[in-house]
Every structure is written in structure tokens, then in C-alpha cells.
């Protein structure tokens, strides 16, 4: 549009410090538990029981209940691990990188994106743990002075993974808690019931919001954002090293780190949209998470989706350009092998469908965005499936080829983690402020800068 056209504000006009505080804190403090929430929670809880059952049976029987067998030792467990950890990355991107870039639109989505990160990392961490076969020995992976006198092998990317994922989980938790601290104090001060005052009083640690408090808080927050930024890039890089440092065709490629990171952010933004769209509706948060926010996230999805598409292209190009016959064969297997339908579905979900996001009409159409976010999540899961399964079933020698199909326990575990993740989100939106209140007040201040007095 030629000439200046006003951009919509990041927050519905007319909000004051008190009104944003009221609106967000009431979802935690005063809103009664609705029938919808209770039914949803009950349903999700039953799915978590399915997860318990699947893991209990696994502990009794061993990993043989899954569809994995040599040559495919990495089935669903690794596919799901990479998928979940990738989803977490958008939370850190929103909270850290967009903070460093001074993007105002992160403000109303960062809190629950960070919660999403934590829960996704928890689901992700579960998979390698139960995939070890003897999860009660998982502490072997950490360096500790054992009576056996042995130590971890630090030249292995799998050990890098242990450090990367556990650091990522810890730092995400710290970042989330620091962000929550002033909001917990707000809840403490607004709580009417004694038990709420006690719980939020303890969690907020006596935060007073003094100028000195805020000064140190902002220094710590900025530094955490600066530290989390390279961290989040390193985590999926290290995850991609699990593949890329191996010699298996289709894995041994230098494009993996950047394209894994882009894919992680791609799927993470899709998941943020999947969660944000129902949440803003259910809690009347449309004034905070505006259409412009959704559009912005759609743009990030489009951009990262194109990087992912570039990654797919380079994988193919390098396979043929290298002339390595195993790589060429693997590339052809993706197109014509037994798992070709997965590959075509992946291209459809991850490359073709998201091109609709070029159109502003689609980016501002909420149902379309919601459907697209689901499609991208499925596509990103298929991507990891294609990477893990096709390479492992078609490596160098035809005598080592195989087929992989998941069992009911594989599906039960995966669906179980989906239930666990969503159940934690359900608890989170009722137990803690889903939007950063103090940052929203700051946004009100910035947006109304120059206006006459406001409450």
C-alpha cells in the first residue's frame, strides 16, 4: 500500500496497567474451573496413563516390545526425541533471540512459549532415557567417580547430547523462573485466598520490585537471553551431530546443523500457533495475542520453512554432486524406495503447503493457520522419520537392509507424550500467568508513550 498505513498495535487499545494485570491474573486466581477444562484435563490424564502403561510394560519386557531391531536400532524413540526437542526451540527463540532483537511482539507469547519449551524438553528427554534399555542405569552417562573406574567417552556426540540437552533444560527452567518472578509477586499481592497467598508468597521469594531489584533483574535477564541464544543453536546442532558424525548415507552431511536448527524453529513456531490459537480464544486473550502476532509467527514459519526446503534441496544436490554411489542410491531410495510415500508426504507438508503463507489472506485466516500449524508439525515428524528410517534400512550392503514398522507400544508411547505435553500446558494456563504480566505493563507504557495520564 503506498503511503503510510498505520500498523495495528501489539496490544488492544484502551488497556491500562491494572486492566492487563487483572485480565491475566484472573485466569489463575479467580476464574472457576470450567467443564471444558475439567473434561480436557481428564481426557489428557487418561492419555498420560497410557504413557505410564507403555513405559511400565517397556521396563518389564525391554525395548523388544518396540519395532526396533538390527539394522534399525533407532526407531520412534529417536524420531520423537528429535521432534520434541525441536519444538522446544521456538520457545527459546521467542524469549531470547527476539528479546535481543528488541521485538515487541514477543511480549505476549514468550511466557507460554517458554513453558512449551520446558514441557517439550521433558518429553524429549524421556525418549533417549527409555531407549537406553536399562534406564535405571542412565546415570552412567554422567561423569562421576564410579567404583568401576570408567568414565564417559567425551569424543562421542551422544555424550555431547547429554550435556547439551541437560544444559538446555536447566537454562530454560532458570530463564522461565526469572521471567516469572515479578509476576508471582503480582499474584501474591492480588490473591484473595490464604493458600494462594502462601504459595505465591513463597514462589515470589519476597520480590518487591525496587529499582535495585529491577536493575539486577534486567542485567540477569539480558545475560540469560544472550546465553540462551547460542545455546539453542548449539542444542540442535549437537542433535544433528548424532547423525552427521556417523558415516551412514544420508546422515554424513555438513548441511545438517543449520537445517536441523531451522527445522526446529519451524516446528516450534507451528506448535506455538497450535497452542496459542485455542488458548487466546478460550481465555479471551485476543486483545493480547492479536491477529498481528499470529501473522508474524506465520512469517517466521514461512522463512524457516524455506531454509528447510533449501536443506532438502542441498541434500539431494550434494548426493549427486559428490558422486558417492551410496549417497546417490539413498537419494533415489527416498524417491522410489519402500518409504517413498513418507518422503512425498514430507514434501507436501513442509514445502508445498506452507507456500500458501505468502498470501496475507492466509496468514490472517485463523482456522487456516491452525490447520497449517498441524500440517507442519506432522511434516517435521515425517522429516525425522525419513532421516532415521530410510538411512538405517538402506545402508551399504543389501545383506544389511531391513524394514521398519512401529508397534502398538511405539504409538502408545508417542501418543502418551503428546498427552503429557498437553496436560502440562493445561495445568500451566491455570496455575501460572500464561502471559508475562510485568512485560505487558511495560508494553502498555511504551505503546501509550506520550499520551496523557493513564491509570
Amino acid at each position, binding site marked *: 500500500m503506498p503511503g503510510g498505513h498505520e500498523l495495528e498495535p501489539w496490544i488492544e487499545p484502551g488497556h*491500562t*496497567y*491494572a486492566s492487563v494485570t487483572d485480565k491475566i491474573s484472573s485466569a489463575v486466581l479467580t476464574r472457576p474451573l470450567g467443564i471444558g477444562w475439567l473434561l480436557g484435563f481428564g481426557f489428557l490424564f487418561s492419555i498420560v496413563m497410557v504413557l505410564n502403561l507403555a513405559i511400565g510394560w517397556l521396563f518389564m519386557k525391554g525395548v523388544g516390545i518396540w519395532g526396533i531391531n538390527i539394522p534399525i536400532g533407532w526407531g520412534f524413540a529417536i524420531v520423537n526425541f528429535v521432534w520434541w526437542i525441536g519444538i522446544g526451540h521456538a520457545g527459546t527463540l521467542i524469549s531470547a533471540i527476539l528479546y535481543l532483537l528488541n521485538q515487541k511482539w514477543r511480549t505476549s507469547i514468550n511466557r507460554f512459549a517458554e513453558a512449551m519449551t520446558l514441557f517439550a524438553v521433558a518429553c524429549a528427554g524421556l525418549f533417549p532415557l527409555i531407549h537406553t534399555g536399562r534406564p535405571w542405569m542412565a546415570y552412567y552417562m554422567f*561423569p562421576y567417580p564410579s567404583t568401576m*573406574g*570408567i*568414565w*564417559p*567417552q*567425551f*569424543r562421542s*556426540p551422544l555424550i*555431547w547430547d547429554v*550435556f*547439551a540437552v541437560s*544444559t538446555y533444560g*536447566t*537454562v530454560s527452567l*532458570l530463564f522461565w*523462573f*526469572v521471567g516469572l518472578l*515479578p509476576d508471582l*509477586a*503480582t499474584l501474591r*499481592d*492480588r490473591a484473595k485466598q490464604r493458600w494462594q497467598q502462601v504459595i505465591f508468597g*513463597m514462589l515470589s*521469594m*519476597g*520480590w*518487591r*520490585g*525496587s*529499582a*535495585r*531489584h*529491577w*536493575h*539486577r*533483574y*534486567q*542485567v*540477569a535477564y539480558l*545475560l*540469560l537471553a544472550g*546465553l*540462551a541464544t*547460542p*545455546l539453542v543453536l*548449539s542444542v540442535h546442532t*549437537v542433535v544433528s*551431530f548424532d547423525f552427521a558424525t556417523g558415516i551412514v548415507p544420508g546422515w554424513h552431511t555438513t548441511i545438517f546443523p543449520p537445517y536441523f536448527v531451522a527445522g526446529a524453529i519451524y516446528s516450534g513456531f507451528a506448535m506455538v500457533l497450535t497452542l496459542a490459537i485455542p488458548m487466546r480464544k478460550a481465555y479471551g486473550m485476543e486483545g493480547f495475542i492479536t491477529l498481528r502476532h499470529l501473522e508474524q509467527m506465520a512469517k517466521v514459519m514461512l522463512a524457516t520453512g524455506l531454509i528447510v526446503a533449501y536443506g532438502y534441496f542441498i541434500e539431494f544436490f550434494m548426493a549427486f554432486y559428490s558422486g558417492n554411489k551410496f549417497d546417490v542410491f539413498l537419494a533415489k531410495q527416498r524417491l522410489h524406495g519402500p518409504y517413498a510415500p513418507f518422503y512425498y508426504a514430507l514434501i507436501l507438508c513442509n514445502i508445498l503447503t506452507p507456500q500458501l503463507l505468502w498470501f496475507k489472506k492466509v496468514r490472517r485466516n485463523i482456522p487456516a493457520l491452525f490447520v497449517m500449524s498441524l500440517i507442519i508439525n506432522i511434516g517435521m515428524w515425517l522429516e525425522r522419520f525419513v532421516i532415521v528410517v530410510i538411512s538405517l534400512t538402506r545402508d551399504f550392503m543389501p545383506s544389511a537392509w531391513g524394514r521398519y514398522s512401529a508397534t502398538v507400544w511405539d504409538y502408545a508411547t508417542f501418543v502418551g507424550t503428546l498427552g503429557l505435553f498437553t496436560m502440562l500446558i493445561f495445568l500451566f494456563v491455570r496455575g501460572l500467568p500464561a502471559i508475562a504480566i*510485568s*512485560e505487558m*505493563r*511495560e508494553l502498555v*507504557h511504551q505503546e501509550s508513550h506520550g499520551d496523557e*495520564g*493513564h*491509570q
Partner: protein
Amino acid sequence: MSERRSLLFGVMGEFSTPEDLLAATKKAREAGYKHIEAYTPFPIEGLSDAVGFRGFRSNLVALLTLVGGVGGGLTGFGLQYWVAAIAYPINIGGRPLNSWPAFIPVTFELTVLGASIFAVFSMLALNKLPQPYHPVFNVERFSHASTDKFFLCIEARDAKFDLVESSKFLQSLHAQHVNEVKDEE
């Protein structure tokens, strides 16, 4: 029944906008008050400077974060070197025992971990948190400090403090409510 002794912590004025508070804080400093503190529902640019929080002390969190990061990184590399070259040397594909490029990812992760932990816990420790009790919480209106009001407290330990004079001074700065802040002992 022993009567609880009440000590005076200071006087507190309430303001409606961050601009008013910032202006009042600056005037209080100009008037010679040293022990003042402002309380706000969100961070306000320039306020910590206005209450006199500047210099080395205000940069301590950043310095300690650096210490944590350097410490984490040295620990990470030292651990791997010691494990791989001294405690448990194994020949992996003929590579040197100190195969340092392979140690970079863990070194990096522990650098970030050390720095982050130091950033958060030094912020909390220097802010003296957790601290469940503080005299300012005795002011009833203070619950608005985490919602929509801005407070300036002149503390009784200030050499220039005088209950009547300081209260008048806050009123002259257009504070809406001026309250005594009681401390219990």
C-alpha cells in the same frame, strides 16, 4: 500483653505514572537524600540511576556471570582432558588422547550452564532474595506496587530524614498518598 515495638523504616509516597516517580526520585536526590528506594510494577529506564544505584555495585551481576562462565568452561575442558588423557586413556581411532576439538561442545555447554546459574543466583543473592519479610509490605497500598502504582520511599536511616519534613517533601512532589513505613521488631 506486651505491646509490639514499632520502629520507623521511612516514609513512602505513591505516584500514578512512571514519569512522576522518576521526576520525584531525581528531586529527592537533588534535595540531598541518599537512602531512597523506588518501587515499580515494571522496570523503568533510568530509575536505578536516579536512586543512586550505579558504578561497580550495579555491575556485579554481570561480573559474577562472567566468573561463572569462565569457571564452567574451564571445568568442562579440564574434566574432559583429565578423563580422556589421564584417568581413563583409550585409543579411539588413533587420535591423540587430548583430542581437543571433540571436547569443544561439552566445554561450550558447561560455559553456558555456569554463566546462567551464576547470573540467576547472583541476581537473587544480591537482591537478598528470598526475603519473606520487608517493612515496605506493611504499607497497605503497597500491594499496588506490583500492579499499577509507583512508590518512592525515603528511609529513616538517611541522615537528612525527618518524619515531618520528609513527608512534607514527598507531598510537595505531588505524591498522592504519603504513608509511614513501620518496621516491627
